């Protein structure tokens, strides 16, 4: 339990990390460091996107599975680590 806390805290304190969200399979944010409205927005959208990405990968090759999803935008990078039940979302501002 404490290790989880420690891990999440460590992730949050990395250079450039703006926010961290943990989402469960139903799309409920379990843990978040951002404000509620932003969290809800990110969760809803990224959950669906991750599902879509995963289904794409599996459609092409059923043996395959989605390992990591990175979306690099002009302003920052959104990283999604998927799992069967949970999603770990981190928003980072990559170093320039």
């Amino acid at each position, binding site marked *: 339990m404490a290790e989880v806390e420690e*891990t*999440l805290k460590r992730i949050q304190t*990395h250079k450039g*990390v703006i926010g961290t969200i943990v989402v469960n399979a139903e799309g*409920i944010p*379990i843990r978040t460091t951002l404000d509620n409205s932003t969290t809800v927005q990110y969760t809803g959208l990224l959950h669906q996107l991750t599902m879509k990405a995963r289904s794409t990968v599996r459609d092409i090759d059923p043996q395959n599975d989605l390992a990591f999803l990175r979306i690099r935008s002009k302003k920052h990078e959104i990283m999604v680590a998927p799992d069967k039940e949970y999603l770990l979302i981190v928003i980072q501002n990559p170093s320039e």
Partner: protein
Amino acid sequence: MTTWLATQVWASMKCNSPVQSSLWSTDSPSVGGHTLPTLTMEIVHVYTKKRNEFGRQCNFSDRPAELHVDILPDPSLASNFIERDPCDIPIQCTQEMSEHEVNTERFESDTRGINHVEGGWPKDVNPQEMEQTIRFRKKVEKDEHYFSTIMQLGSNMEHCIKQNNAINIYQEYFEEEEVVEESEEQPSAKTINVFRDPNEIKRTATCLSWHPDGSCKLAVAYSSLGFQNISPDMSYDSYIWDIENPNKPEMTLKPVSLLVCLEYNPKDSHILVGGSYNGQIAYWDTRKGSQPVEMSTIEHSHRDPVYKVIWLQSKTGTDTFSASTDGQVLWWDIRKMSEPTERLVLDPNKKGNLDNALGAISLEFETTMPTKFMVGTEQGLVVSCNRKAKTPAEKIVCTYSGHHGPIYALQRNPFFPKNFLTVADWTARIWSEDIKESSIMWTKYHMAYLSDGCWSPVRPSVFFTVKMDGTLDVWDFLFKQNDPTLSLKVCDEALYSLRVQDNGRFLACGSQLGTATLLEISPGLCTLQRNEKALATAMFERETKREKILEARHREMRLKERSRSEQSKDEDTKEGDGEESVEELATRTEAEFYEIVEAELKKRAKEQEKKVRRD
């Protein structure tokens, strides 16, 4: 015996019952016969029948056909009618079809937005209530699975975060340095279009001018520069061509006399000024038609053909100046063409003497240096002048000599205004303003006379020249100095004029038979190479320095010579007049020459012998 016959008199057809039955006595027996009563009645038919025959069947009997009426055709009636020809008879032979209408149910679509609200919460948890959500969350966090998942995901994520922090994988490397590909391709030029003089008697295309905006039009001045070569049938027209359409000129300009030179106004693309063969200047406005808007008066114009006219940089954009072989350079304001605004006589002695004057063939004016201009003369001198000088004598600043023939082209380098190019006789020379005695760089002597040349507007070390044998040479002085980088035979007749477009990509050259050829040169020759400016600067400086040193050396030698000759002159005058006449001088030189040649031959013969002996 009379038989009493019951006769029933039937009157008319409608009557079914007898009208009257009367007893008749008949004298003559008639059975079944009928007699017409002589009563005054309508048509009556008497029908007799024996009483005991009543009720019996009718007995029909056959009888032959009787012709009642026969109406024969009467041709005379046909004249009442006209035959109808043609007769339209519609006939339709189709399937029988029936029409039905069907309407599907309308598909209605509606756009709606969905507001993402928190969802996914299990039924018993009310998302609004903080307590319940917190409790739910805490419950999830206690899950064992959660623990392991997060640890694993966390390590993955950390790896990526660190990656991001370490290096920006999308960074543009070497952004500042423009990747300029060294074109390995051979320099080449290809002809795009050829514009021929539409008139029968062909005239020389003596001057070309590109349209200032976009360069989609080319103005070509046609004239005949040969001595008294103008035939009375020769057309005086000059044309403006649209480069896309070589079949027909876009516009004709009709001057009073053949146009020798023609220039577009760089500020106003509708105005052109032209100098003509009889010395007059005229200007056209393309919106106003083919006739010149105004012409200069003959008394105040040049006395010889106007070889070059250039637009000046002024606020009004209406000033030009022109040069002619009569030795004058005249300044004009096109709004008032009756008189030139200023006049300069190219007298090298600076006395303004027209008889002494040098004939001007080319002019040079750079907008970055509005007070200076240069004139190329027929005698091979380049005269540099200052417009703002107070007295006419001071107008001519200096002269540059070095050419043997008339200077047909004179242009400053667009990147290095201190250096200018002159094209004359069989060479093209590059000069530096500071060195007045000779050019700093020159090409070799060609087989054919050079008639025109110009710098490339995009590359400082590239210039173009055209020759009388119809070839176009492209010189790249940084690449090769002995020969042109590209030599192209454009046509069989002589080329007289050349003009490069502002983008450096296209150039047009005009020939003796009035054919203007539009060429495109390869990109390697019109893109600025790396370091080109620096290299060109270095080269020009180097050559200028070399010339300066040579000039200094010459001066020293001359001084020495002079001092020596002064000394010897004093001695000479002491001795007496040792002047030799020209003839004696000639014979003496001849004798010397032959002596030297013989000595040389003897030496060579000796060497040959030595060689033979050795072998």
